[in-house]
């Protein structure tokens, strides 16, 4: 499988993401934001974590206008599979590829720790290898992860099974982490080809790192 990982000034998870997908025997290309075309053979496009353009103005707001983003919009609208992790999720929101917006964490603290997540929906290509209700342990590291959507938007997410992950405790009870509406940690679009999440699966791929639940999630992507 061919994975393309975007790189903006300030991106800092591109090599972790490359390492994780190479561990799964994928061909990974890191693509600089000034390029105007995605590689033709891209099976999965990943917008990785970091602080694109220093998160100035708002997280993801400036990256949205990078040269490569026209090609990303076209790829996504033609059904191409897109994964946005952390800052990548913020960029997808700013680009209008996913609904809602990110606010500063309710605690106003940067949160960096392992946190449990509950699989809310798995009837999509991304989480097909995980069970409904399964609890996984994946690190989070963000300052602006407080997901906001209005009531009508939330209703639509629920009706279309677009909420894929929620923050929870180790027993799977849904728990607030950062103030997100309905404790949402990850969503997909209505067509289910674009997935954004705040936690970092690429940082939990070996037990040496504390947990390898991330690889369980990413493995599911191999059958996209």
């Amino acid at each position, binding site marked *: 499988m061919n994975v393309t990982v975007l790189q903006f000034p300030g991106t800092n998870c591109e090599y972790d993401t490359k390492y994780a997908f190479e561990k799964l025997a994928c061909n990974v290309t890191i693509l600089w934001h000034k390029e105007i075309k995605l590689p033709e053979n891209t099976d999965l496009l990943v917008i990785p974590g970091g602080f694109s353009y220093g998160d100035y*103005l*708002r997280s993801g707001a*400036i990256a949205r206008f990078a040269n490569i983003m026209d090609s990303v919009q076209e790829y996504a609208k033609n059904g191409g599979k897109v994964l946005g992790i952390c800052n990548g999720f913020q960029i997808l*929101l700013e680009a209008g590829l996913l609904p*809602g*917006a990110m*606010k500063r964490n*309710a605690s*106003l603290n940067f949160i960096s720790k392992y946190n449990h997540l509950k699989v809310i929906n798995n009837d999509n290509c991304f989480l097909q290898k995980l069970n409904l209700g399964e609890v996984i342990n994946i690190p989070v590291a963000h300052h602006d992860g407080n997901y*906001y959507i209005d009531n009508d938007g939330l209703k639509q997410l629920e009706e279309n099974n677009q909420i894929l992950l929620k923050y929870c405790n180790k027993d799977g009870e849904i728990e607030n982490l950062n103030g997100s509406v309905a404790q949402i940690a990850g969503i997909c679009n209505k067509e289910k080809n674009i997935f954004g999440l705040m936690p970092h699966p690429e940082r939990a791929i070996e037990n040496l790192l504390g947990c390898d639940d991330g690889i369980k999630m990413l493995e599911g992507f191999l059958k996209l």
Partner: protein
Amino acid sequence: MKAIVNVALKQGVLDDQGKATHHALDTLGFKEIVKDVRIGKQIILELNSDNEKDAKTEVKNMCEKLLANTVIEDYSIEIIG
């Protein structure tokens, strides 16, 4: 000519920064006088323009495209000649 753009979270969207600051002001002894705190940002643009109306239209365009996230934020524009 100058444009001053103020951007803040919409009424109805919980302003966590404002809430935390309100709490701190309470602790500092300003509890009686402060009813609510909202925090926004100010963006000051120096413009090459002498037409106030056109300038305002252009700045509005900038706000819609980049300066504000209209999903959660409101903005106001003041043009200073």
